[in-house]
């Protein structure tokens, strides 16, 4: 039985889409969002059973200011254009975002040179940056910062954003405006026809006149399906630990001075009040290996400790890893290709999240230049109403809501204070949750300190009831990840009802 993943198919079987986007990460989502304004038939295809299941859900959640890369790179170009867009887009789409500012911390005198380099780069990139060497000022701004700090590069336009929620809401906005999503649909081949591309997946063949390859870690493989070979991807793992809410108070994102390989191990607040430490940067052959390692966890703990001494490790609630899709060109791979109507948006590693909105808009522009008619949609929905959130609702208002909908008064997740109403709405929304991970990403149960120890049975039952499937058919993230193997004592398999 197909439980995870969705097809929202307003189109008939033989629809030829105007555009097919391969990949529902934050890059593909931004492209879909940018195209949703136009009167087009757009499809998004992803191999996973939900959107935001790859790099976009396991990263640092940082909006970079744009001082890190050279001014002539695509990384800097898109990062600098996209950065100021986040306030409005996150407000429109109800994505948690906080422009809290960035610190790059030099803990040795010898590291001050790096800050000067970044200052020069930032100034060249037209990004507001300054160097603070007054110890009192930097510790007033960031009281927990190591006393070893010799100086910091301060970039006030840096921020934190919930990357998976941005990804989700961009997709939700696209879906509300008629975009079709084919999930659990890994692309196996693409044939170039006269007027269109035929994109094969095990479940379905999707026809589209234009194709945008936003396939992240597999973007080089997808390009090869149309006979191109302009770049190669390698996967670089970044591991993280996440600390409970209330462990320490941080006002800014703290970076060490960068290495040639990466921006280093960061200590950052998250938009939900946790503290995130990571990532390291290790090459992996397997592009799907997101396992954490003992060595990696120790590496990030040691790295974090340099910026915030004595990290409260007993407050650690989880560890995870993501993979960066690094292109051998050294930059993003964005634009038209020698195959007509086939576009790349690949090799989007850091600052990919920070650049995605601008990449989406620019890809839409390029598609227009290549002949795609960009006529504005007459009834475009660009603002998502704020979904109900128990912990953010004032008590008087909450009382009234519960009287209308008693499910708002049923707390399912005690750690994050999430009600049944929020969970049901997360399932019922456009591109709703179909799995436990889907619920977790959308409304946070299992994200807290008990990691689902208490709420999992309730979530299984709610998913069963809402999806009308037996409880034991509910999965963690896809059809291969069931939680249960049937019933005890020969009890009957059934859809849960209260």
């Amino acid at each position, binding site marked *: 039985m197909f439980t995870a993943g969705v097809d929202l198919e307003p189109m008939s079987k033989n629809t030829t889409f105007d555009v097919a986007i391969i990949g529902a990460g934050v890059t593909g989502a931004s492209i879909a969002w940018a195209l949703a304004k136009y009167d087009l038939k757009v499809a998004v295809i992803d191999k996973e059973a939900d959107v935001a299941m790859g790099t976009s859900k396991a990263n640092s959640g940082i909006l970079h200011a744009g001082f890190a890369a050279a001014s002539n790179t695509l990384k800097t170009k898109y990062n600098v254009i996209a950065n100021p867009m986040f306030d409005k887009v996150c407000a429109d789409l109800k994505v948690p975002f906080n422009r809290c500012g960035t610190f790059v911390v030099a803990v040795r005198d010898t590291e001050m040179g790096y800050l000067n380099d970044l200052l020069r780069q930032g100034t060249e990139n037209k990004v507001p940056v300054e160097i603070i060497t007054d110890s009192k000022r930097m510790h007033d701004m960031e009281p927990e910062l190591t006393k070893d700090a010799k100086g910091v590069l301060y970039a006030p336009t840096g921020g934190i954003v919930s990357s998976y929620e941005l990804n989700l809401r961009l997709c939700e906005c696209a879906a509300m405006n008629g975009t079709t999503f084919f999930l659990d649909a890994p692309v196996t081949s693409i044939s170039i026809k006269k007027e269109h591309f035929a994109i094969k997946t095990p479940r379905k063949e999707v026809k589209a006149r234009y194709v945008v390859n936003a396939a992240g870690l597999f973007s080089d493989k997808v390009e090869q399906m149309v006979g191109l070979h302009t770049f190669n991807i390698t996967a670089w793992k970044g591991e993280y*630990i*996440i600390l409970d809410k*209330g462990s320490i108070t941080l006002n800014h994102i703290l970076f060490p001075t960068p290495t040639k390989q990466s921006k280093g191990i960061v200590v950052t607040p998250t938009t939900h009040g946790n503290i995130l430490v990571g990532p390291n940067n290790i090459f992996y052959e397997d592009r*799907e290996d*997101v*396992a*954490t*390692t*003992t060595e*990696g*966890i120790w590496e990030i703990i040691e790295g974090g400790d340099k910026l915030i001494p004595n990290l409260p490790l*007993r407050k*650690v*609630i*989880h*560890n*995870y890893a993501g993979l960066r899709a690094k292109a051998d060109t050294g930059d993003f791979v964005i634009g038209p290709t020698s195959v007509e109507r086939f576009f790349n948006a690949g090799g989007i590693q850091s600052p990919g999240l920070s650049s995605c909105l601008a990449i989406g808009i620019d890809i839409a522009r390029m598609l227009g230049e290549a002949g795609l008619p960009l006529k504005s949609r007459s009834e475009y929905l660009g603002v998502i109403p704020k979904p109900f959130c128990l912990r953010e609702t004032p*008590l*008087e208002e*909450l*009382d*009234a809501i*519960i*009287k209308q909908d*008693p*499910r708002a*008064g*049923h*707390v399912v997740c*005690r*750690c994050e*204070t999430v009600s049944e109403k929020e969970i049901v709405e997360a399932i019922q929304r456009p591109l709703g949750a179909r799995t436990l991970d889907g619920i977790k990403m959308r409304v946070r149960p299992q994200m807290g*300190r*008990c*990691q*689902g*120890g*208490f709420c*999992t*049975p309730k979530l*299984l039952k709610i998913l069963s009831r809402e999806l009308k499937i037996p*409880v*034991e058919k509910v*999965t*963690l*993230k*896809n059809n*291969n*990840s*069931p*939680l*249960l*193997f*049937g*019933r*005890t*004592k020969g*009890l009957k398999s059934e859809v849960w009802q209260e």
Partner: protein
Amino acid sequence: MKEIKTDIAVIGGGPGGLAAALEASKTGVRVLILERDFELGGILQQCIHNGFGLRYFKEELTGPEYSQRFINMLKDSDVEILRNTMVIDLKPDKTITAINRTDGVITVKPQAVVLTMGCRERTRGAINVPGDRCAGIFPAGLAQRLVNVEGYMPAKSVVIVGSGDIGMIMARRLTLEGVEVKAVVEVLPYAAGLIRNRVQCLEDYKIPLYLCHTVTHIHGKDRVKGVTIAQVDDKWRPLKGTDRFIDCDTVLFSVGLIPENELSEKAGVVLGSTGGPVVNELSETNVSGIFAAGNVLQVHDLVDWVTLEAQRAGKNAADYVKNLTRGVAERGRIKVLPGDNVGYVIPQFIDYLGGDTQVQFSFRPKGPAKDQQTLIESGGTVLAKRKHQHVIPSEMINIVTKVDPFAIKNKEITVRIVPQPEEEKKQ
């Protein structure tokens, strides 16, 4: 918004809450239990094995039987109960905000509060076990709930990480349900839970217990496919070359319990080394009129001790409401400190507010040892002494003794566990 006035609010209707509420109610004060689940009894409802009540009832009961006795007593009392009700805030002035489906937002203004929220399980993430994040990784207590209450099978073949009591009990429970329990892996050189559970749940079923071992990796992209375990050195670091792969579809974690005090902290309650509130001999926290008992205060080995501790807290909360505990002039706090081989001691302070000099000391040894004695001392003078054939961290020690306020020097008492003198051993 609904407002409820009561004398005592008990937060949590598990064994601690039930005992505290009943005992307080006996004195004639108004008591309200706020319970988040649809039924009372707390975690006992999923503990369908026996072994409960040997001390309190002098008979062997299952978890639900044990809690039912108190639930029945409650029916004959005036205690009010709100089920399906989640407390979302507690203020230092003891104002409680709770919500449920029928009443909406509820404000409770009690004169005293007893915290009996229990504990939660330490997670895989909290102990930094690396590997994949796939289906089939459960805290042992969650697996227990799925099997015993919900009636679902979470495993076909399992490795259990940690030999806490829940882990060992689940090893037996899953075996009885037809699951292949491949191993219990314990980082310590001895089983972490009670000896009786090691014997009755592992040895009787020939389930291998790997001591001084840890899980170094969980494998499986979608569902668990196996674990790698390795032997550890005395600093719990994996030893090279001792890796072995065990194929399984499920991993359970039974690696300790953490008192659940997020609500207590909102009220300004100070926590101590147990993860629970710092309390005086009345089980009163630093916030006047807020008491704590049961696993929210310290993780217990036996529910019987929870009952006794909560009864005292309930009684003391009632005395507080009736203004009975502030009649005695304060002598200034006495600090109670853990000494040799003692992990922590409850209470952390003696205030002599009750006018009674009888104090119950609860503590756990840090490590196992034979032929020991507990010395409760002040300034070199022994106030109380108790002999033990053996001590082990999984077993709490409870000593009730009179503590003469005039025998205390430097406002400090120390509790230590030391070997018995040779000549006393022979006796």
